[in-house]
């Protein structure tokens, strides 16, 4: 059996790199440097990808970005804006039931990208943080995503004395996989907690997570206890409803 085809591997690396850049575009030189490729090699790959519409340039000789053909391919790619549109009703309902702020996150490189945010329904002054990045290892959203995906490399910053170390995190992730929901307790901010559950697409793949966050006094029965099961059930029900909306569940 022949081994992996190097040029396809390299092309995939280029696409991943451009995807992680988001709206930020990259030049041939930047791509070559980032992937440790010779510039002519990088150029050849980009030219081929351009021919099939997977990457594009604003102007001849300019920087590269992902092409429109990629947007149309496949079920494997769920647009964050699409996820927000599909989740709108269910995230609202979750915020009303739990009386807490709701966020929906997807993995973006090593971080959780907030694609949707619903204010806590008390009409207090709050700021929309759609587009913000959160650390995955200290949030329920991130744990719910990573437990069913790839463990991102890189150091895990310690935010509080409760932030989990890699060993504790590995144990926690097993629990998340068993229970199908995740929580954080003082791990990002002292005195705050969060609960989240995974959202699945029609193939059962986790494509996002939905959750609530707020002060420990409101979410937990006592400061060292996981969030109340009533709140957990609201979060899981919302996750199931969004999954159903995506065709991920038939009931």
């Amino acid at each position, binding site marked *: 059996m022949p081994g992996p085809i190097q040029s396809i591997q390299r092309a995939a690396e280029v696409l991943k790199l451009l995807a992680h850049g988001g709206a930020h575009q990259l030049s041939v030189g930047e791509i070559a440097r980032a992937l440790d490729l010779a510039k002519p090699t990088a150029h050849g790959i980009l030219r081929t990808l351009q021919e099939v519409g997977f990457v594009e340039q604003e102007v001849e000789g300019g920087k590269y970005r992902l092409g*429109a053909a990629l947007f*149309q391919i496949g079920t494997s790619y769920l647009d964050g804006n699409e996820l927000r*549109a599909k989740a709108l*009703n269910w995230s*609202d309902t979750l*915020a009303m039931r739990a009386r807490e702020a709701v966020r929906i996150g997807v993995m973006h490189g090593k971080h959780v990208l907030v694609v949707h945010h619903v*204010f806590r329904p*008390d009409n207090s002054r709050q700021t*929309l943080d759609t587009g913000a990045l959160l650390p995955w290892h200290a949030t329920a959203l991130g744990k719910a995503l990573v437990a069913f995906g790839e463990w991102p490399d890189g150091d895990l910053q310690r935010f509080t004395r409760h932030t989990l170390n890699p060993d504790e995190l590995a144990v926690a992730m097993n629990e998340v996989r068993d229970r199908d929901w995740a929580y954080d307790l003082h791990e990002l901010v002292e005195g705050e907690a969060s609960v989240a559950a995974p959202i699945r697409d029609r193939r059962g793949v986790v494509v996002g997570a939905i959750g609530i966050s707020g002060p420990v006094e409101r979410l937990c029965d006592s400061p060292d206890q996981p969030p109340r099961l009533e709140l957990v059930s609201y979060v899981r029900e919302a996750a199931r409803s969004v999954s159903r909306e995506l065709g991920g569940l038939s009931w």
Partner: protein
Amino acid sequence: MGYIAAIDQGTTSSRCIVFDRSGGIVSVAQREHRQIFPKPGLVEHDATEIWTNVQAVVRDALQQASLTYADIAAFGITNQRETTVVWDKATGEPVHNAIVWQDTRTDALIKQLGDQDRFRERSGLPLATYFSGPKLRWLLDNVEGLRARAERGEVLFGTMDTWLIWNLTGRHVTDVTNASRTMLMNLETLDWDPELVAAMDVPREMLPEIRSSSEVYGTHEGVPVASALGDQQAALFGQTCFAPGEGKCTYGTGAFLLINTGDKPVHSQNGLLTTVGYKIGDEPAAYALEGAIAVTGALVQWFRDKVGLISSAAEIETLARTVDDNGGAYFVPAFSGLFAPHWRSDARGVIAGLTGYISRGHLARAVLEASAWQTKEVVDAMNADSGVDLTTLRVDGGMTANNLLMQFLADVLDVPVVRPIVAETTCLGAAYAAGLAVGYWPDTDALKANWHKAAEWEPSMEPAARDKGYRKWKKAVERTVGWMDEDDD
């Protein structure tokens, strides 16, 4: 009896949403129906298909939440407005496809009826192809034998609320909000106006009885059918805009800004419509001023279906974010003329400012920005008519999921844009009105307590950029008018 089921018979689909007492959504079911385009400018729906879909979505929504009819305290109805259907009283068969609000076939008839403001005093509306009365007249003139059958009382006229209530309960009624869009109702008396009916030349016998928006019209499967509101008025109700000066803008196929003006109709000097906001049982009616924009979400749909650069409406934001601005391109989607504040049926769409620099990303931006600039035009008209400047815009509808648009809207209006926690205010309004009628909710204060802010976008655009953008937008609008000629169909 724990829930209220709202039926939303919309332009592209019919939906049923089941709500609980806090206004939270319990289940949603939806079915799209066919858009029938016999010729450019003509849009029809099959009313029988719609009735079948409505029955199906009610079943689906109940089933999803494992509910039976016994769990439902009332049905509420909200509907696409102005869409006109005539059916046989004995068989229930429509005599023709329903003529949809966007349809411009009555253009010649409108011109023939005379000055644009001829019926404005009585009906609150300018003469335009948009409204139901002229559509009914077209059917009477063009469906063979229909006028004679109408005079013999064999056929009935209705907007979609009437069609559904007749099928659900057997009664031939409409509500004041839907009736206020026919151009046949007198705004003061809230009854069919003999002069308007005579001028439009339609037989009085085929018109439904006009009732309030919130009362029990009849029952279906033992459940009271207890509200009817045109979709925009339902959204006003769902946003709990019960006090004069409170208003909202709903972004769907088109966009509609409505402001509650209290118990007196206010006549616009700036191209807005005067309409009924709602009427709860025997209480006095609340009137509203309305800025109607024909094409907002429909432009995104067009971009998806006819241009094909995106495969879902939400992806337009992704595409638009590949660039930083519109690159100088402006898209005025006057697909069926311009509605408020211009009311020009001779206008057609324009993409202005095209250069070789413009990419698909710029076009996506221009598509989204069109919704915001059109809103600015009606907000300006609203401010001029009321003499008071809008300080916050309450928004709802599917397009509020589009962050880029909501931010741009705050930027061009220079006021905060606020989304309530239930974006589905149209269905919520129908549910609220039905729930009030059967005592599920005690009063409007209880409904107001359910309103919460779910998101807020603050303006952050430089005044100079806003002024320049608006100037260019207005120049683009100028380029759309007068496109249609006498010999155009």
